[in-house]
């Protein structure tokens, strides 16, 4: 049963909010779910893809042992990874979204919907940021770890994936959690290509009644709840790991 069947007068701020929540609950729920989907897929996908970038970026040319071919491929890979990170961190995601969505749309692929394009862009974007996070995580791992691995007979790649990277990822988890928080907020820009995220859902809820401030007040509170909960979880994670480190020195 509808409590607020009609739109309250303009001076009734909170009544308007309740009206919008009741009337457009479906929009808001769908918007939250899409925002969460974008953030989760973007962060997890970005994490996985960033490992490939890391693989490319940490390959070192061995002047004496690598063939001309191997050395060139390694250099090409490093160049690609560096260029990728520079481009995706150096341009706004809203611009990336426009280029990818409208760039690929003329191919008339049935599955190339705004949501798919949005998932694609947020993943590519997050990849660049998490690659930087993992790089600093790798720099934070004692060089002796790789040397010990090499002295036992592991290749550089085995040492990286068996010994160094697991430690780097563990140390990077709080920063990767931060990327998730950033994504919760920044995926709002994907509404520009028509992704029905929380931002777009709010816009739709207020497009016929022009109660924009009330609508986006709701959006702000929802965003705040999402980021607050996530940051609590990340802090907890951080805390658990810090106490782990203290034990390590005891």
């Amino acid at each position, binding site marked *: 049963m509808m409590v607020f069947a009609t739109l309250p007068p303009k001076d009734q701020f909170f009544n308007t909010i309740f009206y919008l929540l009741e009337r457009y609950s479906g929009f808001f729920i769908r918007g939250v779910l899409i925002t969460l989907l974008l953030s989760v897929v973007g962060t997890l996908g970005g994490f996985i893809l960033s490992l490939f970038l890391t693989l490319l970026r940490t390959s070192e040319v061995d002047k*004496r*042992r690598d063939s001309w071919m191997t050395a060139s491929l390694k250099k090409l890979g490093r160049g690609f990874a560096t260029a990728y990170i520079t481009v995706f961190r150096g341009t706004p995601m809203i611009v990336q979204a426009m280029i990818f969505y409208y760039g690929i749309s003329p191919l008339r692929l049935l599955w190339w919907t705004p949501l798919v394009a949005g998932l694609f862009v947020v993943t590519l974007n997050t990849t660049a940021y998490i690659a930087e996070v993992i790089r600093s995580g790798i720099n934070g791992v*004692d060089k*002796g*770890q790789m*040397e*010990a*691995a*090499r*002295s*036992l*007979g*592991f*290749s550089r790649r*085995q040492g990286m994936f*068996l*010994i160094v990277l*697991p*430690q780097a990822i*563990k140390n990077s988890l709080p920063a990767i959690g931060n990327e998730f928080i950033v994504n919760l907020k920044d995926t709002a820009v994907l509404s520009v290509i028509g992704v029905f995220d929380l931002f777009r859902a709010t816009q739709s809820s207020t497009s016929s009644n022009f109660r924009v401030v009330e609508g986006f007040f709701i959006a702000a509170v929802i965003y705040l709840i999402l980021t607050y909960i996530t940051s609590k979880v990340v802090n907890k994670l951080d805390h658990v790991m810090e106490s782990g480190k203290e*034990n*390590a*020195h*005891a």
Partner: protein
Amino acid sequence: MPKPILEIQNIHKRFGQQYVLNGIHLDVYEKEVVTIIGSSGSGKTTLLRCLNLLNEPDDGHIYFMGSDLMDPKTDLEALRMHIGMVFQSFNLFNQKTVLDNCTLAPMKLLNLSKEDAVDRAMTFLKKVGMQDFAHQSANRLSGGQKQRVAIARALCMNPTIMLFDEPTSALDPEMVGEVLQVMKNLANEGMTMVIVTHEMAFAKEVSDRVVFMDQGVIAEMGKPEEILVNPKEERTRSFLKRYTTS
């Protein structure tokens, strides 16, 4: 005399403008214990790290059981499996248990089954007196315990030769003895060892040969009594004097 396990021929190494090794010749024979002494900056650690190419010499040859480590076609990883190394700062794998530190390389590189790798690890952990700590995190051990585990980890690959890079320099004084004892036992069992150390009493007791390095070259080399008691070279004498007085 039989053929040496390790032949070091005319090794040169520089870091930037700094010449660290200026033509080193050294042969190491089976079951021999060679200790390298010298003041800091003499190049002894760099020399040791060149022996498994953790530092790559700029020039020269290192033959390990007949293969030239410096030849680009040599399978370096396969040869390193036979050259155990123990570091000053232990370098145990963080976030792993003592047992996992010891079983990782045998399982991944020698394709041992888990049971076999654990059996082997427990044998060597027992040897260094660390079997009771097998399931503890490596991060929680004392320095002396860490170094003993590091020795066991290297032994799990059944190396032909063991390299020790100042294995007791990062330890509190009361922990030095336990590590040196493990090394003495190894030497007595006939392990071929090259040891960089500042422990002169230990060097005298355990070595077959002592190498004194100064400014990137071997200044003097011989039996422990010759080098540590009656050195011929003036610079060896002044180095030892600094050690016995300090």
